[in-house]
Every structure is written in structure tokens, then in C-alpha cells.
């Protein structure tokens, strides 16, 4: 036995066999991928002009700025009636957006599910494309577009959140539909039912629980997005954020961010509880 990396030993037939640590092509792909990733990282640092030397100084400065300008947070400001009103607006926008988004998602996901779509040639790719577009466009872009067309207010916010929720939920719903047991579906076809009836009796009872969970999750995610759409003119607490950032009222900004954190935490607790409740019930 010599080096660690090449071990030789006789087989039953007597011919020596070798074990090498480096195997082709698996090791090539594995090490190659790490190398590519490393190169990309290094190149990014170059291309984006990230000053590595200044970076460590930044942390000290960050602490300074936090302590100096963002503390203490202006809690009184967020207790203001107008601000609380905008918080309620945000909650309303979130659930309306999630609700309409989910309503759109039901047919959209049906069409985007390969096993149950009415037409695999046209409807399926169309639905997949539509849901991909909704998902790919960031909620802030939807907001800006709708505000540009419809003006300021809650309407563009609700519409933006609707499309965002639809994009988010459609993929999850479609995956649920594609994962069902096709046995009951086959049985329904065999009775002479049409596609709609097969969906109602064969598919929906199987996915109902998962859909509810996804719906609650969507509402949670929509709420997080809703806190910020106001920044771009769509109503809700985001607008207060924008105003105070523009006016460099950093203590008020800190307070607003704190209120966002608290609200999102509460919404997450509610949605986690609701999902557990649904799991136990069905």
C-alpha cells in the first residue's frame, strides 16, 4: 500500500483494482461547478466595484448611524390616528388583493395543470405563461404601472396585490392538482361526466385542504407586500414610509419600520395558527 489516493488490492480473480479520489466525469462536474461559482463571485465583486477594504469599516459606521439617528424611534408618531388608519387600509388592501388573486388562481391553476387542463396544446401553455408573467413581475412594478394608469389610492394597490397573489398561488395550486391520485378522476370520467364535473367531484375534494393552506400562506405574503406598495403611491402605510424617508425623518422611519415588523409578526402568527387549525380539522 503506497499513497493515500491510490490504493491497490487484488480481486478474487487476481487482477489489481484501483480506487481514485478523483473520478471522471462526476468529480469534474462537482469541482467544476464550485470553480464556476467562485469565479462568478470574484467577478461580481470586481464588476460591482465592491470596496472590500471599506466594507469592514461600514459595520462600525452602521452601528453608529443606527444608534445616532434611528434611536430612539418616534413611537408617538405611529400612534397617530391617521397612521393607524393607513395601517387598517393596508390590511384591507392585503386581504382584498389576496381574495381576488385566489379567485383568479382557481381557474388559472386548473388550466395550468398538465393532467386536468382542457387543452394541452393551447390552454396549458397559455395559462403557464400567464402565471409566470404574474409571478415574475415584482409587486412594486405592478404597483407603479397601475398607479400610472389609475392614479394614486387603494385601487391600484389592490389590483397590484391581486396579480401578485395570483402569480404566487397559481404555481403552488397547479402543482397540487398535478399531484393528485388520478384513480377517482378516472372513475368520474367512466360515469360519463364532463370536464367540469370531473373537476368538482374528482379533483377539488382531493386538493381542498392544501388549497386552504396555500390560501392562508398567500394572504400572509400579500400582507408583507402590502406594507410597501404605499411607497409607490398605492395607499397604506408605505406612503408614510416614503414621506419620512424623503424628509429624512429617521426616527419616524425607525418607528414605521418597527410597526411593520410588529404587524408582520402578528400576521405570521395568525396565519401559522390558521394553517394548523385547518390541518387538524380536515
Amino acid at each position: 500500500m503506497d499513497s493515500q489516493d491510490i490504493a491497490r488490492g487484488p480481486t478474487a480473480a487476481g487482477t489489481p483494482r484501483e480506487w481514485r479520489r478523483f473520478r471522471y466525469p462526476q468529480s469534474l462536474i462537482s469541482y467544476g461547478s464550485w470553480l464556476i461559482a467562485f469565479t462568478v463571485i470574484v467577478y461580481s465583486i470586481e464588476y460591482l466595484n465592491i470596496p472590500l477594504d471599506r466594507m469592514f469599516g461600514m459595520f462600525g459606521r452602521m452601528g453608529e448611524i443606527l444608534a445616532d439617528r434611528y434611536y430612539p424611534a418616534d413611537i408617538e408618531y405611529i400612534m397617530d390616528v391617521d397612521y393607524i388608519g393607513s395601517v387598517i387600509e393596508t390590511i384591507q388592501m392585503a386581504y382584498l388583493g389576496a381574495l381576488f388573486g385566489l379567485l383568479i388562481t382557481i381557474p388559472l391553476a386548473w388550466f395550468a395543470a398538465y393532467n386536468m387542463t382542457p387543452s394541452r396544446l393551447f390552454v396549458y401553455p397559455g395559462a403557464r405563461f400567464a402565471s409566470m408573467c404574474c409571478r415574475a413581475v415584482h409587486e412594486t412594478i405592478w404597483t407603479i404601472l397601475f398607479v400610472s394608469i389609475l392614479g394614486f389610492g387603494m385601487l391600484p394597490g389592490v389590483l397590484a396585490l391581486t396579480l401578485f397573489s395570483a402569480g404566487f398561488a397559481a404555481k403552488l395550486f397547479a402543482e397540487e392538482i398535478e399531484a393528485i391520485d388520478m384513480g377517482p378522476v378516472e372513475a368520474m370520467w367512466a360515469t360519463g361526466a364532463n370536464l367540469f364535473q370531473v373537476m368538482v367531484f374528482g379533483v377539488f375534494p382531493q386538493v381542498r385542504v392544501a388549497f386552504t393552506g396555500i390560501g392562508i400562506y398567500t394572504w400572509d405574503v400579500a400582507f408583507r407586500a402590502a406594507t410597501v406598495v404605499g411607497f409607490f403611491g398605492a395607499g397604506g402605510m408605505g406612503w408614510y414610509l416614503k414621506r419620512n424617508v424623503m424628509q429624512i425623518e429617521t426616527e419616524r422611519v425607525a418607528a414605521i419600520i418597527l410597526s411593520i415588523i410588529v404587524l408582520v409578526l402578528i400576521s405570521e402568527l395568525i396565519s401559522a395558527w390558521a394553517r394548523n387549525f385547518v390541518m387538524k380539522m380536515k
Partner: protein
Amino acid sequence: MTASTDTEGYTLTTEAVLATRRRKRIVSAAVTAVLLALVVWSIDVTVVKDTDWERMGSIANVLEATNRFIGIDFELFPTLLGPAIETLLIACLGTFLGALICIPAAWFGAMNITPFKPITYPLARLMMTLSRSIHEIVWALFFVAVMGLGAMAGVFAIAVRSVGFIAKMSAEAIEDIDHGPVEAIRAVGGGPFQVFLYAVLPQVLPQVIGVVIFEWEINIRRSAILGLVGAGGLGLVFFRQMNTFNHHGVTTVILAILIIIVFGEAVSHAIRRRMI
């Protein structure tokens, strides 16, 4: 099992069954009606009352406003290559940095290997929740305030936003590991670092890499808009096009964003499929 049918008995039961079904239907119809009324009321209170319907004008006005966006600014297209690469690289670097931060975060956040449970575990969980609760725009605003405008603020915003998800998934993966290999490595005399390297890491690495790539794909979507608040990439171009009212330009930038997102999705799919 009776072969003959007792029509008297059946008529009664049929009535009962029909009545129960009808009752159930009425109840659910009533509940749906109430919910519908609530929704209509919400829409009225929020959207209808709040919207400045006069300023918005008629449907024709709205359609005309929408029509402004339809069209591509072909001159703009070539100039988008630089910002598009910048966006992609911000996503790459940001995800990488976030994954680095996740190493201690997942260590603290996994119940089975966290060093000092009463303090480090809740701390890690809190960090993860904070990271996920604060929208990336807010993080970007913060980092722009601290580091100034530019890509670095974007990288940090992406990093901090990603920590929550990656650390949570990694911690869950670590909590799910099979303890057999851990015991085995300890039995041959391995120290904590060796236990981590030979027993824990091989079990969780494929999952963690999958999660990182998944988050990278989402981060492309996020980096694209961080420029709206000054953190570099295509978002900045978007902002400028909106401000100069070049609506076709806005559509062009959105198209560019869609293209790089599709690219990211394709790469992410390909890699994650090969890993499984």
C-alpha cells in the same frame, strides 16, 4: 340483505335525506351570501370611496393610459445589457453573502446543534423572522442610507433578506438528520468539527444547495427592482424611464427583467433537477 324493496320505508328515508341535504345547502348558501356581502362592503369602503373617480376619467381614459405602455423602445434595448448583468451579479453576490451569514444562523437555529439553547436558538429564530418580515425595499432603503447609493447596498439588502429563508430551511434540514453517522464519527474519536464535516454536512448539503439556488432565482426578481430606491441594476433604469415619461422604455425594461428572470428560472431548474 333484503332482495325486495320496502317502498314505505324508503320514501321516509328519502325524505329525510333530501331534507338534510337541502338544509345543508341553504346554510352554506347563507354563509356564502354573508361573506359576499362583507366583501362588497369592504370594496365599497376601501376602493370605491377612496378612489378619485373623476380624476381617473372614463374607461376610455384608462384604456388610453394603458395604451401608452404598449410598445418597445428599441434604442433603449442595447443599453440595458450592463444594468441587466449588474442585476444578475447583485443577485449572485447577495445570495452568496446571505448563504455565508446563514452558516452561523442555521447553526444557532437548529435545535439539535445550537450551542446554548436558551439564548442562541431564540436569537437565531428572531433574526430569521426579522429578515423575512421586512420587505426588500425597506432593507434597501436602510442600506442605501448607510452605504450610499449603488450596488453594494443592493447586495447587502439581498443578503439580509435571504438569510431568513435559507437559514430556516437549513436549520430544518439539520434538525432532520439521522444521528447514526454522528454517533459513528464520535465513536471513532472525531471532534466537533469533524463530526460536522463528515456526519452533518453530507446529509444536509444537497438540500441546502437546492434552497440556495431556489432563493437565488427569487433574488433576481428582487434585485431587479432595488434600483428603484437607488441600489443599482435595472431598477434604476426603470426609475429613470418612468420619471422621463418614456412609457415604451418602461415596457422595454420590464421585458428585459422578464428575460433575465426566465434565464434564472431555467438555470435553477436545470441545476436542481440534476441534483435530485
